């Protein structure tokens, strides 16, 4: 699933990553727990999170996450945007809740990280 498709499905604002809209995401993960994101490789993974802090961006960069979507319409602080831009990490904001946002992506074929690992 491309970043562009994710943006459409989630009716999301693209805050960082205009030039990466054609990037293909292999799997998705939803978590507010940074410790969970730090377990296992996250290459090609889009992460949905309700946590709107700088640590989401830093954790994503460290874990190798491919894109971050903030749920429930959360708007990132300027410093988060600057960090995402500095690390070329696409950052989106969707009005949907975590459950609904994950469901909308899953229904269209995006699978969880455990699916990716078992393939």
């Amino acid at each position, binding site marked *: 699933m491309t970043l562009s498709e994710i943006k459409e499905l989630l009716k999301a604002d693209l805050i960082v990553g205009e030039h990466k809209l054609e990037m293909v995401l292999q799997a998705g993960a939803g978590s*507010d*727990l*940074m*410790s*969970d994101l*730090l*377990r296992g*490789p996250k*290459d090609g993974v889009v992460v949905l999170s309700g*946590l709107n*802090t*700088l*640590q*989401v961006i*830093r*954790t994503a*960069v*460290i*874990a*190798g996450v491919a894109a971050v979507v903030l749920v429930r319409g959360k708007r990132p602080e300027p*410093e988060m945007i600057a960090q995402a831009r500095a*690390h070329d990490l696409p950052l989106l904001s969707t009005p949907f809740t975590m459950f609904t946002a994950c469901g909308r992506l899953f229904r269209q074929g995006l699978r969880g990280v455990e699916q990716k690992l078992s393939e």
Partner: protein
Amino acid sequence: MPHLTKSFAIKARDYIRGGDVSIQIQGLLKTIGFDAALIRRASVCAYEAEMNVVMHGGDGTVTLTVDTDGIVIDVKDEGPGIENIELALQEGYSTASEEQRELGFGAGMGLPNIQKNADGLEIESEKGEGAHVKIVFKLRSNGG
């Protein structure tokens, strides 16, 4: 493989800057040209250890050493120390505050995750004496 030693300061309870040192370490390891899986393991360990100092420790330092044997991430802080290292290594054991949990940390996964990702982990600490965490990654003959 170039030899490198570089130290970074960590400030306790600085949740704004917390993690920045590990991002710098990740950048250095990328510049040196290690393989992506090793960089990820080392960066994750550095980040877990750095956030431990930010959350639980006092001010501290991280020293990154790279040589022909591998990568060493050495973290020292002047905080209250780890009272029971065996307990701290158990998944789910945490002394984090509500504020720290709200930041997405403090699930008791930090040290166990370091242990899982590193080739070697040494922890020296006594109550009131700070903590010293040494994390080792060995370079293998196939290049790591």
